[in-house]
């Protein structure tokens, strides 16, 4: 086993891991059409989880702040988007693709706007007083999560909410005998666009350079004359907005959401950043895709194991690489 892992490492690094998983799953599943469906579902799920997790990972990398309340942005994003979609139900049902697209665009925009505002509030009020105190940070963000969940319960009630989908994303595309849900393709592509935009920002802009440098060595960036605390607010807000967008997309994916959504996603998001390695966007993507694929394959092959599959995946990867697959250079 160990020799196999090092061999993989040599031939292309950990990036090949999802491919290997998909390859093994292909033979275990045996039915190509099911395999394609599951793989697409896994990739779509992975991309949405990536959006939810990327902010958490960057925020931790940059300021050593672990925000247990992060999943509140996910659930608020989902509910805000669901409400907007509910109001625009007329547009969604229309035959016009333009109106469809406008509705879903507005819903996502509302989620993003909410995420930015809530992120600012969260950073300034909840987190800033406890920057350098991990214990109180965990406790306070946990307290904030409780309050946020109660607010969702108070505003939207405890009963599951139906999320209408736009007409043009309903149904599947048939390719031979393989049916691929349109929404999954949409979610995957949107996630990919966001990932590429993030990657471009981090690698090709001065702000991105500062963030990457700050993740490695905060003090040195300050000694070069940059206020990292101001940069941090921006990153925190963007991270929260991405989480809200991820939640909004998730709402459309599930089509039925409950207030427990945040708590459920929190565990998955944590597992993703632990697997991927804190502080690196590539690692987070890798972790998210792995979790998405494994969850779907195992859900098909051994439904009883599905819920524990993430946990087992995390254990295996931590035993192999205690700092995650692709942690930021520290």
């Amino acid at each position, binding site marked *: 086993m160990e020799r196999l892992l090092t061999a993989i490492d040599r031939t292309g690094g950990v990036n090949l891991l999802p491919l290997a998983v998909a390859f093994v799953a292909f033979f275990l599943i045996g039915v190509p059409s099911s395999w394609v469906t599951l793989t697409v579902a896994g990739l779509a799920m992975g991309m949405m989880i990536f959006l939810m997790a990327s902010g958490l990972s960057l925020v931790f990398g940059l300021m050593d702040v672990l925000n247990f309340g992060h999943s509140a942005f996910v659930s608020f994003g989902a509910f805000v988007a669901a409400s907007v979609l509910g109001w625009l139900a007329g547009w969604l049902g229309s035959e016009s693709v333009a109106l469809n697209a406008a509705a879903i665009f507005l819903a996502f925009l509302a989620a993003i706007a909410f995420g930015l505002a809530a992120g600012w509030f969260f950073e300034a009020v909840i987190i800033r007083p406890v920057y350098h105190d991990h214990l109180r940070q965990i406790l306070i963000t946990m307290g904030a999560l409780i309050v946020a969940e109660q607010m969702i319960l108070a505003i939207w009630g405890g009963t599951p909410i139906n999320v209408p989908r736009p007409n043009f994303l309903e149904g599947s595309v048939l390719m031979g005998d393989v049916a691929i849900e349109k929404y999954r393709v949409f979610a995957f592509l949107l996630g990919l666009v966001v990932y590429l935009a993030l990657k471009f920002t981090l690698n090709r802009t001065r702000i991105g350079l500062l963030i990457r440098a700050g993740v*490695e060595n905060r003090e040195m960036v300050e000694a070069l004359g940059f*206020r990292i605390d101001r940069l941090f607010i921006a990153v925190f807000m963007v991270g929260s907005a991405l989480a809200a967008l991820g939640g909004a997309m998730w709402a459309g994916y599930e089509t039925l959401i409950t207030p427990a959504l945040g708590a459920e996603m929190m565990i998955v998001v944590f597992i993703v950043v632990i697997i991927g390695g804190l502080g690196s966007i590539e690692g987070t993507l890798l972790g998210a895709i792995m979790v998405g694929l494994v969850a779907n394959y195992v859900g098909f092959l051994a439904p009883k194991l599905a819920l524990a599959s993430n946990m087992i995946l995390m254990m295996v990867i931590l035993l192999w690489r205690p700092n995650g697959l692709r942690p*930021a*250079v520290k």
Partner: protein
Amino acid sequence: MSLLSLKSMQTSIGQYAVLHDVSLEVPEGGVFVLLGRNGAGKTTTLRSIMGLWEPSPGSVRFRGTDLTEMHTADIARLGIAFVPEDMGIFGGLTVEENLILATANGSFDKAALERIWRLFPALETFWTKAAWSLSGGQKQMLAVARAIIEPRELILIDEPTKGLAPSIIDAMADAFREISANTTILLVEQNFEFARSLGRDMAVIDDGRIAHAGSMADFTANTDLQESLLSLSA
């Protein structure tokens, strides 16, 4: 008036008082060497000047401006560069990216860049390499290069020769000599030979206090003083 003036600076890290009373006048120009045993407080002095630890009570003045309450970033913007003991290289960034971060507006001044390449040719060779792949000496060169890519008034350098090969130390000494022609350097050093060859003025810090300050020439001549302050056998 001296360029940098520390007045009875006291710094505590957590509950441990590291600096008890550090008063120092660093004149403009040349290399000022701060010597002292391990744990005497040299690094803490530099970090306190830079605002990375907060000295209290006591004051740090730079050209008359009080730095004590200022943010590290604002201190840096006054024209003070810091080369920490661990060099503070961003390993995941390329040599070029490390340097461009140190510029004021994100673009290189051609003359400054050529000067760096002349002083440290290795940096031009590995220009697009990730900084973690550099050797220890090359990393130190990069760290110093970051400090001089923009015109600065004062450069704080913490033990730049630590763990370096003799040939690289010589190159470093040449570079410092050239830099110090128009920039003041406050150099913390354990390597007395290196320090002696560069320093014009010097001070010895011991147990969080300035134990001696004067010219390097006088200190070099006085072996008894060296013996008692640095436990050096001449």
